């Protein structure tokens, strides 16, 4: 399993190279070809088990596109103050409340702690308000602006410092499951051959507006696209079950509709039948907000029928996200099943 190593690499949107290098290193012997496009997406290709390429006109194997994004959310240094503190912007969607007092790695792995005014010093009114990004700063223990500038510069990325761990009964804890979990699954898939030709797209800059997949959609062609994602689990704080979106431990979540894609009802029905026949748990993502690379990929060229399978994730977009090991394995099993049965789906 590549999940631990992938999650511990830092690859904030626009700076995905460490993740891409890792994937290339491990997949280059297993795939037939790979290329990196101009925006940084990694595309790998693997022919079908009967040796048929996906793009030959006669006796053509179906082509299945598997997509996951390599980037994760993080921070970017925007200013170094006179005292040597670092002001920052968020890259991707981050709730400022989760940042306070957390450890981070700035630029070239310079450790830092995110600081704010201590509760003792906050005025009564301030205590009632939530803190915004502007109230926070990164402390790298520098005594002055000059000292800070020796270690970091404006524009450096800042990543969450967080190690992968097994947690509780069958949970994993790490940063960046969104979407290294998807990357890890595609990497495992690429070890084998299937009755379809595979195109693996490891995309960049999903978290800042699906930018990498926009470029992929300009050149990729496929008969089916499977987008593998992590999605926000809301199975804890909301009391009412009808407000939950997905639950941990109930299998991968199949999207019905999100902000940018309506998934084909016929395709979803066939996939949920397939999962039921083989006893793989599958849940539906009950929210319709947010979006993923499917938004671009399903409209590529004259259209690619697409599905999104997501691994439910608590505390998503934070340094300590949680997923269920079983959900990961069931998602992998379902993707394998879909690839083996893709003739019946397309």
């Amino acid at each position, binding site marked *: 399993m590549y999940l631990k190593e992938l999650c511990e690499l830092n690859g904030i949107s626009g700076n995905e190279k460490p993740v891409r290098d890792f994937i290339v290193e491990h997949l280059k012997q297993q795939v037939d070809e790979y290329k990196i496009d101009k925006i940084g997406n990694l595309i790998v290709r693997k022919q079908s088990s009967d040796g048929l390429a996906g793009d030959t006109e006669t006796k053509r194997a179906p082509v299945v596109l598997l997509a996951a994004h390599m980037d994760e959310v993080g921070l970017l240094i925007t200013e170094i103050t006179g005292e040597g503190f670092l002001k920052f912007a968020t890259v991707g969607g981050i709730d400022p409340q989760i940042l306070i007092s957390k450890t981070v790695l700035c630029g070239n792995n310079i450790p830092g702690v995110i600081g704010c005014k201590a509760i003792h010093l906050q005025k009564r009114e301030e205590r009632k308000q939530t803190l915004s990004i502007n109230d926070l700063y990164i402390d790298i223990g520098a005594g002055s602006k000059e000292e800070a500038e020796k270690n970091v510069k404006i524009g450096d990325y800042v990543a969450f410092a967080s190690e992968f761990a097994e947690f509780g009964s069958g949970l994993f804890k790490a940063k960046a499951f969104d979407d290294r979990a998807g990357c890890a699954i595609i990497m495992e898939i690429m070890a084998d051959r299937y009755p379809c030709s595979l195109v693996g797209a490891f995309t960049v800059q999903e978290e800042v507006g699906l930018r990498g997949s926009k470029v992929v959609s300009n050149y990729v062609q496929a008969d089916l696209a499977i987008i593998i994602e992590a999605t926000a689990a809301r199975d804890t704080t909301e009391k009412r*079950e*009808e407000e939950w979106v997905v639950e941990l431990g109930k299998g991968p979540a199949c999207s*019905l*509709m999100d902000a*940018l894609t*309506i*998934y*084909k*009802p016929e395709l*979803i029905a066939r996939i949920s039948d397939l999962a039921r026949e083989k006893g793989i748990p599958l849940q*539906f993502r*009950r*929210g*319709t907000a947010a979006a993923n690379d499917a938004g671009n990929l*399903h*409209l590529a*060229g*004259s*259209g*690619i*029928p697409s599905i999104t399978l997501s691994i439910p994730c608590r505390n998503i977009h934070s340094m300590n996200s949680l997923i269920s090991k079983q959900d990961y394995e069931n998602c992998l099993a379902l993707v394998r099943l879909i690839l083996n049965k893709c003739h019946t789906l397309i």
Partner: protein
Amino acid sequence: MAENMTLDYKFLKELTESFGPSGNEKQVAALIRAYAENFVDSSETDTLGNLILSKNGAGNKDQAAGKKKIMIAAHMDEVGLIVTYIDRHGYLYFSPVGGIKEAELPGRRVMFGSGLKGVVARERKKNEQGKPMGKCFIDIGVNGEEKAREKVKEGDMAVLSGEFVETESHIIAKALDNRVGCFIALQVLKNYQGEHDLYVVFTVQEEVGARGAKTAAFEIEPDLALIIDTTISYDTPKEEYRTAANKGVAIKAMDRTIIVSPKIKQWMTDTAQRHGIPYQCEVISAGGTDSGPVHLTKGGIATGGLAVPVRYLHTASEVAAKADIEAAYALLSELVKNPPEI
């Protein structure tokens, strides 16, 4: 007007009564395909579900010799609801599909693709000011979750139910946005005998962001695209007059997603004037139609937009004036006969 344009609205009734929320347009497509079977040269459905009908032009086969590909697009989809959760009592929780206001739904009847009917209600929860703040749900009149699951599942969509009413001068119906555009495009195609190849695309998923038109335009790559849709009618009491019912077909100048080229706009208004067709100009700062993605396809496609003003858009009772429908039909028929040099 140039000719007597009395249209037979029977087929519009069938169109508006059929079921087609975004992503579930199959029933509408089947209805249109069957209607057009005998007068088109080709008929195909693409990956997203767009229905593409075409008639070959009588002109020279050689495109270089001036034969053009003209595309008319009209979206088939309507706004609706998608079931996201079924509770133990058999009530269905949902999200809106397209621009539909939850606050206006309680008390409304809805209809599923299977013909199943239901009514929208709201949880009784109220906020401190006494305003209802509970979630809306659909009651399909069953005892418990198990019974509900025999009829419906997560992901199923519903649309608003509404009876079709034809008065002397107006049409009242659900889904006039944009079955009226489909109706007009289909009548134009039926009677078309021009020089150029005419493609009429009945697009999917316009209400959620003009998605079908993007792939259809990519596939067809027309020389000229004309989009027929509906627009807001501002002629109800206490509203400022902008586009309004009974003032003619609206010719698009601008919305959030397109600025129509002056040349195309001029050609459209000139054509309307020459044939005595009443028209008005549409400028809106919000919203967009299929014309947005279409004009940006590939190297760019010359694109114009026409619309029928409709009152109470995205409700079960949309109202359009027959005179505007006939004006839109007349203008679109003339436009495809004489496309401009591009």
